[in-house]
């Protein structure tokens, strides 16, 4: 089973993940132009982009635990998943900037400083931005594996910040983002509980 899955994933090209990952965006564009959004389309666009970003972020967090716990390797898709998360996060921020806030720069600036939900969201986004621009082989070479890995551990800060950002933006304690925050913390727990096998264990010599 494990081998079959790994074989399958080895043959699946990365662009297929990109193509599938852009389906939610295509559906959103379709709904926007075909009147499939609700009475407040701005809110729907903004929220759907934000939710999709978080889901891809969580998917990218699942890659390592899946390898360590189940031996299933999606490692080759991890970068695409992370970049998809960043793409949706970027569009989410852009929709807030243009459609929701209508370019009221002064109010946006004040709001980000004053409102914890915006501050958390923005810090999360800045982290994702830093990870996205270093998500290429050249950056890994330039930074060195260890420094690069250290930087990219920040994803474990970004993910709970983003979930909290969602929770704090709502009036009553919401079930869905609360659930995802628990999932993120569980994934983080798994990373801590099952450490990275630094050295390949060699068979002991008799």
């Amino acid at each position, binding site marked *: 089973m494990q081998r079959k899955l790994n074989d399958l994933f080895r043959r699946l090209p990365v662009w297929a993940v990109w193509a599938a990952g852009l389906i939610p965006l295509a559906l959103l564009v379709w709904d926007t132009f075909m009147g499939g959004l609700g009475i407040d389309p701005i809110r729907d666009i903004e929220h759907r982009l934000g939710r999709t970003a978080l889901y891809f972020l969580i998917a990218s967090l699942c890659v390592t635990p899946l390898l360590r716990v189940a031996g299933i390797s999606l490692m080759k898709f991890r970068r695409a998943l992370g970049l998809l998360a960043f793409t949706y996060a970027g569009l989410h921020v852009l929709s807030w900037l243009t459609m*929701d806030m209508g370019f*009221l720069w002064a*109010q946006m600036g004040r*709001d980000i400083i004053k409102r914890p*939900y915006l501050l958390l969201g923005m810090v999360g986004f800045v982290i994702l931005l830093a990870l996205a621009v270093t998500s290429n082989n050249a950056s890994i070479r330039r930074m060195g594996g260890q420094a690069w890995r250290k930087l990219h551990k920040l994803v474990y800060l970004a993910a709970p910040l983003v979930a909290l950002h969602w929770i704090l933006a709502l009036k009553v304690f919401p079930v869905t983002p609360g659930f995802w925050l628990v999932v993120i913390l569980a994934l983080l727990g798994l990373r801590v509980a099952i450490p990275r096998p630094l050295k390949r264990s060699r068979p002991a010599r008799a």
Partner: protein
Amino acid sequence: LTGKPSQFSTDEKPNSFEEITNYNNFYEFGTGKEDPARYADSLTTDPWSVEIGGLVDRPGSYGVDDLAPDNALEERIYRLRCVEAWSMVVPWIGVPLVSVLNKVGVQPSAKYVAFETLYRPEEMPGQNRPFLDWPYREGLRLDEAMNPLAILATGLYSDPLPNQNGAPIRLVVPWKYGFKSIKSVVKITLTDTQPVATWNALQPSEYGFYANVNPQVDHPRWSQATERKIGGGLFGGREETLMFNGYAEQVASLYAGMDLAKNY
């Protein structure tokens, strides 16, 4: 349903019937904006009675027609500003709240008016979940309730009030955030102490008893300086929120000398 035109109506263009009836906060039917339109059909609004009591001369159970007879109906086109920083313009049909208060005879010792929404979880599925302390309650100071802007609405455009908008009878206080305008009212009580208001009790730092629309006093988690008009299109932008939602001329005197940053 028709109502006499009123000097208090705004000349802004009302939102469409579709917008007003498909974008509602009515947590008795769920927390989603689409939930009320989806689930409020299950609500029985006939028969309906409103229990009026407390410090009144003629307490009792009143029918909707007793409180808002056809010949007394007025059309009031009001701005509606939600505490979530969006807004609409709604053409209500209803009667001034003061006419109802005069009908039941307010005693001199009364200082506040308390309102209560129907509690019927078998028809209001949201009430099966404890995100608010049901039944929903709201209150006004007596002088606020007597202000001619405060109405009890029974209609929307020329229709009887749709269920998702608080049928068959609801409060509308246009200078306050929308959550003060309690829906599907079954109980009105005149009291001498400040009544419990649901959101205020849940989160007093975020929702005040007064809840007057005030661009200078922010919600702790978001700004109230501007608002987004529903129906404004994808790039309609935001508008400045007006003090008392644009009704300062009629209501500012009610709060003369009060620190509105403290009494938010």
